[in-house]
């Protein structure tokens, strides 16, 4: 996946206004199957997996014993005891090892199926009306998954995405992927690269593993308490329950630069002469046309409206904590 095809701003705006597609085949897939599939996933994932109906989808964190985030991922329930997990590429191998080791006491098979799938994320307000007719498939509702035939091969259509827009993520046979890509191009879908993927997700404050999420940070700090159901007693739930009760040491906040300057990952967050946090992701927001980002700051500073400064390569840029998401879709 290139950083850009024609230009990040153009691609970004295609997804916000029309429809774009991302080749996210680098994402990993793990199949979990067997009579104990639910019990196993309930043990390793932070959300309440029992709530996923057949054909449903759910966002979750994979945590270590300390509540640190090993990965964040979507789980799709393909059938009764059959689940598919989509992992972040850089965590795929370590996730597999983690899941494999913890699956031994369960009647379950954990299978690496990353080679079976190419993944195309088709995103934007017109994604559904373009995609359905172009491929002749039925599309699932948001946060659901449907089996389909794409290019004459079995495929999965998932009502999920990473852009803040409606859209579908297609898991298809790698052999037919180039043809499907070409078909969608013909249908007017704009090819988009990693650059737009990052600006789109950042504007809606979706965390990125490696930036906002790390094994040293728990989901409470990251504002992901909503996808942690401690009563399911998943690995890490005790530490997370403690963090929730005591309040986190730092909290993830969104901010906008007031005036000039573009924040980048690693920039110190200042208040007076004190460093009060660090930028985890920063960019020029194409929708807001201003520098914006996310940062971990002391919880008392995470209030919307708090004035901060971002040290952008030695220049202090005034900024203000903003409400999440930074960009809200016009409805």
């Amino acid at each position, binding site marked *: 996946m290139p*950083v850009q095809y024609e230009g*990040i701003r153009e691609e970004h705006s295609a997804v916000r206004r029309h429809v774009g597609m991302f080749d996210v085949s680098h994402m990993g897939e793990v199949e979990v199957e067997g009579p104990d599939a639910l019990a196993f996933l309930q043990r390793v994932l932070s959300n309440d997996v029992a709530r996923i109906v057949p054909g449903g989808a759910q966002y979750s964190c994979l945590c270590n014993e300390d509540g640190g985030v090993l990965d964040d991922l979507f789980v799709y329930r393909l059938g009764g005891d059959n689940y598919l997990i989509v992992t972040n590429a850089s965590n795929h191998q370590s996730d597999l090892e983690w899941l494999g080791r913890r699956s031994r006491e369960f009647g379950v098979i954990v299978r690496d199926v990353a080679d079976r799938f190419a993944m195309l994320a088709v995103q934007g307000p017109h994604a559904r009306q373009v995609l359905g007719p172009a491929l002749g498939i039925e599309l699932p509702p948001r946060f659901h998954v449907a089996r389909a035939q794409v290019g004459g091969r079995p495929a999965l259509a998932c009502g999920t995405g990473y852009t803040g827009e409606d859209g579908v993520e297609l898991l298809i046979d790698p052999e037919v992927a180039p043809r499907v890509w070409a078909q969608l191009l013909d249908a007017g879908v704009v090819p988009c690269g990693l650059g737009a993927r990052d600006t789109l997700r950042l504007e809606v404050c979706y965390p990125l593993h490696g930036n906002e999420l790390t094994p040293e940070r728990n989901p409470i700090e990251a504002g992901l308490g909503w996808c942690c159901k401690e009563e399911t007693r998943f690995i890490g739930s005790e530490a997370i329950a403690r963090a929730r009760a005591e309040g986190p040491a730092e909290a993830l906040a969104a901010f906008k630069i007031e005036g000039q300057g573009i924040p980048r990952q690693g920039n110190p967050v200042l208040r007076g002469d004190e460093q009060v946090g660090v930028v985890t992701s920063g960019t020029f927001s194409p929708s807001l046309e201003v520098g914006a980002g996310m940062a971990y700051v002391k919880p008392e500073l995470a209030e919307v409206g708090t004035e901060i400064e971002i040290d952008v390569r030695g220049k202090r840029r005034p900024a203000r904590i903003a409400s999440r998401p930074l960009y809200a879709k016009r409805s």
Partner: protein
Amino acid sequence: MADATYPDDLRYHEEHDWARIEGDQATLGITWYAQDSLGEVVFYDPPEVGATIQKDSSYAEVESVKAVSDVIAPMSGEVVEVNDALEDSPEKVNEDPYGEGWLVKVRLTSPEEAETLLGAAEYRKMLDR
């Protein structure tokens, strides 16, 4: 965005900067290649008028959505004017890198540095390598 161009009347620095020398002054900017590699410029952080800039050292920053880049001075001098229009329209660096997308004007302190710079043909040859 227009096709690659490297006007003959400019002198070029290996770090993809150009100088238009007029008497003891020069206008500086980045080349077509530089703006193309960087992508859409969304922010220009200029030096201050009166600042001294050194050949081969960074004197400004241009930033695209994806990355920030130092701008290297092709010649030494004192900044006499900066392109203020880029504050509102930084995309001019992409649209017209040798015209409206100029970055600074300097009074040259070592005009002989021009001899170390490349002509358009030489710069093109360097890009092809």
